[in-house]
């Protein structure tokens, strides 16, 4: 500590220690905040299967499903000071068709995201990838607030899916036992990433609801109606 350089080195070294400790405390403080996410309704409103090119890079025509849905959910308890964003996504899940994979149909698993959204916390609004006008509006909506749990309340009616779902086999029409499932992923400013849980962990309750009724995909619609 006899010269300025040594004092600067030592002070900076201790500063990094303090930063590390405080960052750990912030990450741990997440566990002290109860989470009780709940989904009111999640249901399909319109399901269609079309044959066409679902993506601009599709080289061949294939069947794809367009699933419109409605959603009511309360995820407001996920927003704390350490929340940077919550990524909410709805998947369609259906059992593997025995003919395609050779696995029994009760071992589920085809999963495809049909819709997602990013809910930034006010502390991360400036990072959101939206137009300047929308950004201004977003920042204004939380002016003076450091966190804004009300953003976690979702109410969506008859939403068009962002992604049409397909299957590598090219066939998806008349698939049975499809369900929609709501998921979330909490992105912290520092610490562990967390997803929706199937069991309670400490103060974090499992996601209530979040599963739609089982439904079947219809037969292919006539080409005249198809929107590509």
């Amino acid at each position: 500590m006899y010269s300025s350089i040594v004092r600067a080195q030592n002070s900076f070294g201790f500063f990094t220690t303090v930063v590390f400790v405080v960052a750990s405390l912030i990450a741990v403080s997440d566990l002290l905040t109860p989470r009780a996410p709940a989904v009111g309704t999640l249901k399909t409103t319109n399901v269609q299967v079309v044959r066409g090119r679902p993506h601009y890079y599709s080289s061949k025509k294939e069947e794809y499903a367009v699933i419109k849905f409605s959603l009511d959910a309360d995820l407001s308890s996920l927003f704390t000071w350490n929340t940077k964003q919550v990524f909410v996504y709805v998947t369609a899940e259906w059992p593997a068709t025995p003919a395609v994979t050779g696995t029994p149909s009760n071992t589920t698993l085809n999963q495809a995201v049909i819709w997602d959204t990013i809910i930034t916390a006010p502390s991360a609004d400036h990072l959101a990838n939206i137009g300047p006008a929308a950004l201004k509006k977003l920042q204004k909506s939380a002016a003076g607030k450091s966190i804004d749990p009300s953003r976690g309340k979702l109410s969506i009616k008859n939403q068009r899916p962002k992604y049409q779902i397909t299957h590598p086999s090219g066939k998806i029409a008349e698939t049975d036992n499809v369900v929609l499932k709501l998921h979330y992923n909490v992105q912290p400013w520092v610490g562990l990433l967390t997803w929706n849980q199937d069991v309670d962990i400490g103060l974090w309750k499992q996601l209530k609801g979040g599963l739609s009724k089982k439904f079947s995909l219809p037969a292919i619609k006539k080409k005249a109606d198809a929107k590509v």
Partner: protein
Amino acid sequence: MAEQILDQIRDVAEGQIDFEGQKLAELIANVALSVVGAIAFLVGYLLQDIKLAVLIGLGGTALTFLVAIPAWPFYNRNPVKWLPVGGGPQPLPNLVVNEKSVQR
């Protein structure tokens, strides 16, 4: 000439302080940084505002560095008292080491 100028720059850049000052500087740096960290966390947690916590942390740290790093005068209040070169009193005979031992 250039050597003298370099010496002066070295003096400023080096910022030597005395032993008591070193102790004090280390104490100030460690305590202040810990307190700043604690305040940043508590204020941030209670107000649920992470940006405020970062601001308090960085601001407090900058202030601490400003206090602890430069050679402020109050770090040099207990200069080491060197014995004068050659001019001091002769060593007492009973302290001469190559004699048998230190006698009264």
